[in-house]
């Protein structure tokens, strides 16, 4: 929409005092002066706001309208409101009357990437400071005008008041003076008891757009003369092109170009053939006519059964140390009893509801306009390199729209589709929208890692656990396309709880290497480790003859936050209530991304059919912004995790993924979802934890443990069929 509006609608922002404000809150990277960019014609979100920017995030209109920029990619997690809410709290403005505007992607907002459930955690402090220092500037401006000291004044509802007086001065009346004031370096932050916004549920501003088809996703980018592209890539991911029928593709009405495009995935430059046409349908028809012959013999030997064998071969490797407490190996000889089992999890696809796509317009005047449905949308510098634009002109010449994201789950932190689309648009100097088909999206990776977990426990004569081993075998994300680093790679042991009060614990990682690309997938290694670890703890509890929840409470005493979560779960789930014979319950608790999450899953078997009537969840995520969004993210993780546990894996045969669309890579649907999900949030003053991912790791083990309770069958390999337990 915004791109096609005529230039006279453009409203100019007066940017004042940015550098000072940004430096004051410790955002060196935010302090870059953007300067004026009158020559760029692309209409960006910011161009439609009227007012004075007291800093890049807060704009005050002459009419009193306060605008707060939402700069972090919104992929469903409510961050578009979450971060502005933090600013609004300290700024003392009413969130319901604030105009929240989705920004473009540009360096003036600092880092805009999203992932690792990190954004609320990392921005909570800085954004409070930003809001508070802005508030203090208004207070000082008013105090000066009134000739009183600042401590005689206070701010409320976007106005400054003198103590004891009822008539206030609106921020909009103070903008000029406030902007001239030096940004306070250590503004006073509000205390939690005075919060009016943080910790309360506010309706999300983007939802009206999302129930009426108005939200702008990358897939919806529209601009004059737009062309559509699709790419045929090698089914074995890697391979070179031997031959193809360009003429047949070009003969399809509407097809304008066939060209090679490379996709860089962890150091591999994989070649594909793009077909560009005046409509997406024509491009697809052209693609069907390509008849590409691939030279990929060296990759066709890759198969799931070969991978299974390769993982098994690594079982006896010692691997890298993660935690060694006591002497686990010694307990193997002393033990009266042992359990030794293996847990396995498959490759998976991220499968965002909105397939990968990108829109890029490399223009004849040397500028470039981008629609980046990305978790890391600030592509200016990398694009500039490719386009031969000097780095110091990258921001000025390359404008990046930040659409809503139809899901991310880690997949959109890889910008492969944007770089593919850039190559096409660069070759044609025309606006091009590249759309990955669902089949491309499912089968071309990168994938969630496939893992194997060797779990061992040793017990004394009283059946008390004396030793625990968790040896994890997997690829690592951060060492792909390069040799192993000879030490424990980043984050591979996420979600493995070594706080259990067992005297001898050994947790180790054995690195597996192959060509299949893996990438951050919602909760990453927590999604695999959590299943093996908490599923196995259930086995240990059963061996010890104890209730699994009580077992955990008794052995996590060194971690009081865990114990409190478990006690709350016990109560909210009515855990100790006896179930009937056709019912089952299971629970699990995992800490990841700074939050502790426990789920209790209830199962019911009726007329031979197993269903999930209820999931009860308790989360300790420290201070939270919007409790309804804490619940929403938990519900979301439960469904995403149940899909991973119960639906399809990605498997390989002849080097190619065997799943392509929702008929072969199925998703959990309404009729299979739990009828009820209850989320309970712990109240405390701990630092904010992440919420986008922590709900996922404990769901599969809680489910598997419930299956055991219902049927006596132990699930150690995902996915599994709930109707066959």
């Amino acid at each position, binding site marked *: 929409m915004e791109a096609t509006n005529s230039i006279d609608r453009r409203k100019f922002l007066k940017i004042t005092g940015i550098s000072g404000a940004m430096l004051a809150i410790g955002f060196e990277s935010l302090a870059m002066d953007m300067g004026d960019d009158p020559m760029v014609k692309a209409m960006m979100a910011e161009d439609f706001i009227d007012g004075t920017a007291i800093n890049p995030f807060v704009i005050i209109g002459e009419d009193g309208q306060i605008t707060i920029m939402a700069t972090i990619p919104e992929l469903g997690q409510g961050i578009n409101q979450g971060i502005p809410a933090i600013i609004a709290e300290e700024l003392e403005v009413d969130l319901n009357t604030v105009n929240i505007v989705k920004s473009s992607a540009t360096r003036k907002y600092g880092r805009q990437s999203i992932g690792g459930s990190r954004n609320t955690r990392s921005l909570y402090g800085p954004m409070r400071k930003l809001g508070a220092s802005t508030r203090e500037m208004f207070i000082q401006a008013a105090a000066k005008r009134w000739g009183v000291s600042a401590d005689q004044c206070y701010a409320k509802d976007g106005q400054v008041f003198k103590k004891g007086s009822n008539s206030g001065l609106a921020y909009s009346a103070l903008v000029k003076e406030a902007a001239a004031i030096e940004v306070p370096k250590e503004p006073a932050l509000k205390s939690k008891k005075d919060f009016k916004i943080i910790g309360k549920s506010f309706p999300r501003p983007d939802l009206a757009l999302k129930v*009426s*088809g108005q939200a702008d996703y990358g897939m919806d980018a529209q601009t004059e003369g737009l062309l559509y592209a699709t790419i045929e890539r090698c089914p074995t991911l890697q391979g070179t092109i031997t031959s193809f029928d360009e003429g047949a593709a070009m003969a399809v009405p509407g097809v304008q170009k066939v060209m090679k495009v490379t996709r860089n995935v962890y150091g591999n430059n994989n070649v594909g053939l793009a077909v560009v046409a005046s409509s997406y349908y024509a491009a697809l028809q052209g693609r069907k006519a390509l008849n590409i012959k691939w030279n990929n013999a060296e990759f066709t030997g890759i198969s799931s059964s070969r991978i299974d064998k390769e993982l098994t071969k690594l079982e006896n490797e010692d691997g890298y140390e993660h935690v060694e407490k006591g002497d686990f190996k010694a307990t193997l000889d002393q033990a009266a009893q042992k359990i030794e089992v293996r847990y396995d999890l498959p490759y998976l696809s991220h499968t965002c*509801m909105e*397939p990968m796509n990108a829109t890029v317009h490399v223009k004849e005047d040397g500028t470039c306009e981008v629609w980046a449905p990305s978790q890391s949308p600030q592509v200016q510098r990398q694009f500039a390199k490719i386009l031969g634009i000097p780095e110091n002109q990258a921001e000025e010449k390359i404008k990046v729209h930040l659409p809503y994201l*139809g*899901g991310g789950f880690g997949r959109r932190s890889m910008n492969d589709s944007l770089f593919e689309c850039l190559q096409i648009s660069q070759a044609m100097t025309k606006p091009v929208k590249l759309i990955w088909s669902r089949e491309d999206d499912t089968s071309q990776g990168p994938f969630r890692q496939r893992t194997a977990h060797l779990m061992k426990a040793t017990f004394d004569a009283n059946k008390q656990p004396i030793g625990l081993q968790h040896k994890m075998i997997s690829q690592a994300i951060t060492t792909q396309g390069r040799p192993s680093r000879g030490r424990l790679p980043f984050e591979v042991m996420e979600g493995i709880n070594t706080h259990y009060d067992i005297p001898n614990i050994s947790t180790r990682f054995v690195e597996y290497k192959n060509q299949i690309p893996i990438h951050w997938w919602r909760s990453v290694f927590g999604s695999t480790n959590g299943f093996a670890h908490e599923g196995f703890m259930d086995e240990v509890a059963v061996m010890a003859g104890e209730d699994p929840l009580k077992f955990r409470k008794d052995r996590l005493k060194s971690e009081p936050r865990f114990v409190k979560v478990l006690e709350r779960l016990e109560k909210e789930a009515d855990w100790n209530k006896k179930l009937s014979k056709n019912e089952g319950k299971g629970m699990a608790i995992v800490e990841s991304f700074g939050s502790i999450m426990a789920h209790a899953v209830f199962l019911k078997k009726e007329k031979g059919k197993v269903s999930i009537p209820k999931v009860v969840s308790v989360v300790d995520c420290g201070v939270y912004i919007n409790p309804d969004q804490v619940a929403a993210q938990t*519900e979301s993780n439960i469904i995403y995790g149940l899909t991973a546990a119960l639906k399809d894996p990605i498997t390989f045969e002849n080097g190619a993924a065997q799943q392509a669309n929702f008929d072969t890579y199925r998703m959990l649907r309404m009729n299979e979802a739990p009828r009820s999900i209850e989320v309970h949030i712990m109240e405390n003053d701990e630092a904010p934890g992440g919420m986008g991912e922590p709900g996922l790791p404990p769901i599969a083990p809680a489910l598997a443990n419930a299956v055991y309770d219902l049927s006596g069958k132990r699930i150690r390999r995902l996915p599994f069929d709930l109707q066959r337990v």
Partner: protein
Amino acid sequence: MAKYTLNINQKQVTVDADPQTPLLWVIRDEVGLTGTKYGCGIAQCGACTVHLNGNPVRSCSLPVSASSGQQITTIEGISENESHPVQKAWIEAQVPQCGYCQSGQVMSAVALLDKNPKPSDDDIDAAMSGNICRCGTYTRIRKAIHNASNEISNGSN
């Protein structure tokens, strides 16, 4: 290529398209109504749901040639200002997350309630299980449909 006159949201539009082009891409790229989404292209996910003479259909699997002369309603056509009871219930229950599936969810729910103003949970399962939500908003959708149903029946009393 051939010319088709489509009746979309009570307006006539003429488009030039290959007869086999799925209605989805015509609605999105020729007519410019981008609320209807592509999710799978094979009638498996429901993201592309529109109404054809009041019935929910998957526009990704319906050729444009079979759509002309019929009443087509897209998400943009069900109300002004998000005032349909289903949309209001969706906002009330804060259903959408990423939102990408939600045009299709709303269209399926509107069609359900048109035919069955008091759906049971099983009716909801039957009508809504063709719509995938990767963000997992199912429990909220169920709640919102019940709320919309109450609102509709109260309103008509």
